[in-house]
């Protein structure tokens, strides 16, 4: 039997960057028990890129990610794996300190690496969560 696949596309520019940035991606896809969330960068309420410190961008992204998951009936507490990309690993702790506020107990598995990001963003975060 084919696994059901549903697109999760909130009509909110603050959490769906794809229309404003004209990107060929869905914010998230639910397949079976899992929700796969696209790599998210910091955007403001109108969907424009928000450039800030690593701490500010991390906070903006995780708040938006929480909303995407909640609109899909899930939550950050149900995240099982998070991948964080930052522009420089020298900023690891600046990300980690904000990150821990969003996962007060039983944090998900996580991988952090330093990578060259598009569009001048300093942080990009993707995740897999239980539906």
């Amino acid at each position, binding site marked *: 039997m084919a696994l059901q696949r549903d697109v999760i596309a909130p009509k909110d520019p603050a959490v769906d960057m794809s229309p404003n940035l004209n990107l060929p991606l869905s914010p998230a896809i639910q397949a079976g028990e899992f929700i796969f969330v696209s790599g998210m960068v910091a955007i403001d309420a109108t969907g424009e890129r928000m450039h800030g410190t690593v701490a500010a961008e991390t906070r903006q992204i995780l708040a938006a990610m929480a909303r995407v998951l909640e609109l899909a009936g899930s939550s950050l507490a149900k995240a099982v794996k998070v991948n964080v990309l930052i522009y420089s690993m020298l900023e690891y702790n600046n990300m*980690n300190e904000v990150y821990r506020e969003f996962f007060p107990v039983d944090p998900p598995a996580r991988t952090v690496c330093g990578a060259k990001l598009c569009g001048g963003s300093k942080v990009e975060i993707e995740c897999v969560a239980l539906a």
Partner: protein
Amino acid sequence: MREILPVPSPGLDLRHHYGHHQSPAIRAGGLIFCSGMVAVNPETGEREHGTLTSEARRIFENLKLLLESAGSSLDRLVQVHAMIYDRIEYDVLNRLYRQYVPNAPPARTVMSVQIEAGFKVMLDVIAAA
């Protein structure tokens, strides 16, 4: 159902040793999601920097411990993200890698990125529980 797996050996808990805000591995939906693993001593958590080969060997041995303690194994890997510090080491990674997954290797992506604490390799895996 989302279950945090206990570490089989105290050194593998990077949250405890280094404050990385992450669980070592989580079981959910029949899969095991592991946090990115780097070369640490499984007993003490001490970082073991070395060549890419020695680091990757240490990671695979730790991964074996972790997966087997959860009833899985290296044979049950589904997907691997292998992160290396420089693409020039790609063949070096492959030589060691094929020793640990000799048959029916998992899906894999290799990328060249900055890894924490000056490590040369990190493995990020999903395995069947």
